[in-house]
């Protein structure tokens, strides 16, 4: 009796809540640690990136207008969905060379990290915003607002925790993101995009492109409608090129010193702008 033939998944890009192939028609093989072909994934192009930025920009205003409570709930749901698909993620990470135990641990950490950032959604403003006691009969308040559209260069490794660690602090405050996934281990990123799609995350808030960071990041860094770029996952050359391109619309650059495993509300603040409002107090 011949074994049942498996119907293998096609791994595509995640843009605006949909799963298109690259408009360039290109793909490349995602390899296991032993060099076996796990699957082919899309090789995103500058046009895909352009479409992703447009989707992010369109989605960002409404995402930011949601209450912190609502965004926190959505991030918590992402965590629930990751937990639900823990074995799929663990398998993919193990194929990338981790032991099963380590892979499972990484997935658990990713869930917890998402939960951690979810809890900040309705609180970070209480830490980073405040009333200012100016010298005069004025009410003066400073509050952080999301900067807008943020490009994220995901770390090559850890292939899943790294992505979650850089994405969560960006979107929790109301930014929309365009992510360039790990080139060597792209599968967890695409599986993650399926999680996002089932987690009440509005279309366009997160967009994930697989492909070459060297090819895509310059376009991201040069894009006049991207407000900030997180370079924690970028190589030295890519970082340098990004810094040059970012100058044109004065992008905020974060993560220039590379990826670390820390979680911190300061990573949330890094992608916000502080707005200060004055109003007289008087009759």
């Amino acid at each position, binding site marked *: 009796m011949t074994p049942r033939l498996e119907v293998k998944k096609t791994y595509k890009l995640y843009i605006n809540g949909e799963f298109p192939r690259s408009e360039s028609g290109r793909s490349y093989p995602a390899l296991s640690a032993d060099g076996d072909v796990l699957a082919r994934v899309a090789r995103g192009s500058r046009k895909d990136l352009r479409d992703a930025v447009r989707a992010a920009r369109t989605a960002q205003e409404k995402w930011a207008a949601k209450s*912190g*409570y609502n965004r926190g709930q959505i991030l918590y749901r992402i965590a629930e969905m990751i937990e639900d698909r823990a074995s799929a993620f663990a398998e993919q990470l193990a194929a990338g060379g981790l032991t099963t135990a380590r892979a499972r641990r990484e997935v658990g950490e990713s869930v*917890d990290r998402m939960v951690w950032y979810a809890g*900040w959604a*309705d609180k970070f403003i209480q*830490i980073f915003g405040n009333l200012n006691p100016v010298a005069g009969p004025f009410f003066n308040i400073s509050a952080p607002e999301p900067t807008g559209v943020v490009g994220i260069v995901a770390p090559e490794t850890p292939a899943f925790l790294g992505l979650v660690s850089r994405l969560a602090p960006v979107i929790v405050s109301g930014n929309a993101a365009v992510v360039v996934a790990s080139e060597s281990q792209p599968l967890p990123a695409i599986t993650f995009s399926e999680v996002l799609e089932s987690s009440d995350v509005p279309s366009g808030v997160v967009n994930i492109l697989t492909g070459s960071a060297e090819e895509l990041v310059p376009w991201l860094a040069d894009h006049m409608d991207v407000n900030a770029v997180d370079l924690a996952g970028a190589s030295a050359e890519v970082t340098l090129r990004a810094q040059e391109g970012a100058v044109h619309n004065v992008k905020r650059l974060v993560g220039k010193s590379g990826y670390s495993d820390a979680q911190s509300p300061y990573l949330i603040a890094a992608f916000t702008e502080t707005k200060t409002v004055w*109003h*007289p*107090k008087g*009759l």
Partner: protein
Amino acid sequence: MAKNLPAPKSLDWAYAPSRESTDIVKLEGRYGLFIDGKFRAPLSRKYFQTVNPATEEPLAQVASANAADVNRAVKAARAAFDNGWGDLSGVERAKFLFRIARMIQERSREMAVLETLDGGKPIRESRDVDLPLVAAHFFYYAGWADKLEYAFPGLKPEPLGVAGQVIPWNFPLMMLAWKIAPALAAGNTVVLKPAETTPLSALLFAQLASEAGLPPGVINIITGAGETGAALVEHPDVDKVAFTGSTAVGKRIATSLAGTDKRLTLELGGKAAHVIFDDAPIDQAIEGVINGIFFNQGHVCCAGSRLFVQETIHDRFVEKLKRRLNTLRVGDPLDKNTDVGAINSAEQLARISELVEAGQEEGAEMYQPACELPGNGFWFRPTLFTGVSQSHRIAQEEIFGPVLSIMSFRTPDEAVEKANNTPYGLSAGVWTQKGSRILWMADRLQAGVVWANTYNKFDPASPFGGYKESGFGREGGRHGLLAYLKGLDE
């Protein structure tokens, strides 16, 4: 083609009694005390009855905890604190609280119906206001459990230990959430006593908490009346007391804590001033005033019970208020169309009636809509008084019912002076178009919560608590954690 239908020229229609089904609630005949993860018979061997105030029908028998029961509960809370909860990592505590929040969301309808049955508040409020806030409170504080080191600069967060918490009957489950969520997030364990007329939602909550896998002893729910509460707050192994209720009882508790080093927070009564300037958005101000005093039948510590209307618009405003009063639907709390439900108990009804009589005797003019009240149960029509003076009892004493006392003012200074002329200081409302005036008023009003161009808004992120005899300490927000951590407010 002619179409001559003898249709009526206009229509007078009725709202359906749109009764929420109570099938979703499964009541037990008799409830024990929830101690150390299980329901247990009271050592006192005594029980008391809780009734539905809309019908006076008995709902269930509930245990009456005596000092020995209280001791058992505190011991369980202490053991749970010493044996793990206090040392559990924040992220694990957070996940427990998130889980509880989720479970509350899932069983929201059931809890809302139970809350309405036991307490008399309209199902629309328990469903649309109370329960969402309960879940939100657990979600909010869940998120703090693993972030305490960011909450207060320079402070290494440490829990206090065992918290004894006593809550009132006006928002039973919501008050439970306001107490338990921050306490647990900060790493404490709790023994909570719900009010004697509204114990059931707390007991259902206890079931949920144990289903969530919460370690035994972290939450203990003991039912009983004033004596049970006194035994709890006076227990020597309670590190922290949190009380919401009347100012009179709050003062008794403060007295009994004198000489101990127990930490204390109190959320007591109020007699809030609701100030309407003549440039207010009038029709929305009317809604705000109505909500301010008739939401939850006026059983609200921060109710806008003293209305100050700028004299230039006084008569027109009062006419609109009276007109609006006539559209309020008083009746079966389970009817989704009901606006004003039952008064919580015979005692409370007597208190309200006494003060309203005093109002009439003292010369204020009473207005009530001519609505029919059901036969059984405890009911009071929404009431307003005009021609009230500061010295009238209805302007001084907290009525805690659907009764509004209306006075006029001429200048902002006068409004502030009169608003502050009370031993209470929980909340205040201001309506005006002018932003600078809102801020000027907010600066001067001696109230822990100021609502401008809105009223009765609550959010777990927003600190709530009083000035003066309305109590001390804040619940909600980052500030709400202060009460449950060491090293502050000694």
